[in-house]
């Protein structure tokens, strides 16, 4: 069982695009050799920003709701697992339905595989592979108290809105403390980087 006080938080603004998580993911024993994390490039022409995407482990998993073969199951600790191999019919319904775009269809096995929060590790109290290697801790795994102490200027949220669909998740997304109640994903679809200028202090130069 994944401990109740453990929190997995994603902070895309901290991501530096180093791909350490992508390679660490393939080392996980539940899906050895297959990286299931998504490292998205937001808008390459205008920004260097990247964003990691792990499974958010929804309270009402859309992937499982749309599965016609009843193959996607969630364990008692709220972790949505890879499709059951004897049941999965490789129809890709879950791939199309997931609001976060997490499931991956592995046609070589006719099986949907997805991030299962490194269940072999987290269920025995270890960190997921990606969070254990992330140098900027864009992927954070630990207790809520530690997270609040380390990141006083942001707060974790578990609520997202896709049009009319409100989703609550097990995995948290770090947002500004005065931000809205939900992360409204559909409203942000057309938005690009703000192009805000920041003057950063340069080493050896008086600011």
């Amino acid at each position: 069982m994944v401990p109740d006080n453990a929190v997995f938080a994603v902070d895309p603004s901290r991501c530096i695009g180093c791909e350490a998580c992508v390679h660490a993911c393939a080392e996980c024993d539940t899906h050895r050799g297959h990286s299931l994390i998504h490292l998205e490039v937001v808008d390459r022409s205008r920004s260097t920003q990247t964003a990691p995407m792990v499974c958010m482990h929804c309270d009402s998993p859309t992937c499982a709701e749309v599965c016609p073969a009843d193959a996607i199951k969630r364990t008692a600790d709220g972790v949505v697992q890879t499709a059951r191999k004897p049941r999965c019919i490789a129809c890709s319904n879950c791939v199309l339905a997931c609001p976060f775009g997490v499931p991956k269809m592995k046609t070589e096995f006719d099986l949907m595989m997805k991030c299962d929060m490194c269940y072999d590790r987290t269920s025995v109290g270890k960190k997921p592979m990606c969070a254990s290697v992330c140098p900027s801790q864009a992927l954070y795994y630990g207790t809520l108290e530690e997270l609040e102490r380390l990141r006083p200027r942001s707060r974790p949220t578990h609520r997202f809105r896709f049009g009319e669909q409100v989703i609550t998740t097990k995995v948290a997304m770090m947002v500004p403390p005065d931000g809205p109640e939900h992360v409204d994903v559909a409203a942000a679809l057309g938005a690009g980087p703000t192009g805000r200028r920041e003057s950063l202090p340069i080493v050896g130069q008086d600011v």
Partner: protein
Amino acid sequence: MSEPTRVETPDLRPPEAQPRWRRDFPIDWPEDHLVARRDFTKFLVLTSFAFVAGQLWIGVKSLLGRRAPAPGAERIARLDRLAPGEAMQFAYGGEDALLMRLPGGELVAYSSKCTHLACAVVPDLERGRIACPCHHGYFDAASGRPIAGPPNRPLPRIVLETRGGWVWAVGREVST
């Protein structure tokens, strides 16, 4: 996460108000693995009923099948076209059958339907047997009796007669 996992449904109604199929196909692993005693009993009763009905159906079918009239005499081959050690297929009474001339010159014919699972048998006269390729069942070519493998009933024998240089099939003997 300190708060327990909340069960949320797409239509946001409570779990009790959900349709029956949603309870039959739960998303959560523990509920999916749960087999209620009532469901298990229902499964047992229905499965045994299906077996009983299947046995009755097989019994009725075999009773009715026995009443079918025996096929009459049919001319099937010229004797001089079939050398010792050769075999040929023919149809008799709507079923495929195998006419064989044993190396000693004796003529035998059997239904070519294996008595195990009804695969077509093939002659193997050099070894004096008839082989079923499906599950490696073997029958004795001289008597039709099973000698190895899964079949345990002999092949139905076709009674042969030789009339004026022609081989005739005149009847069918099913022994159990």
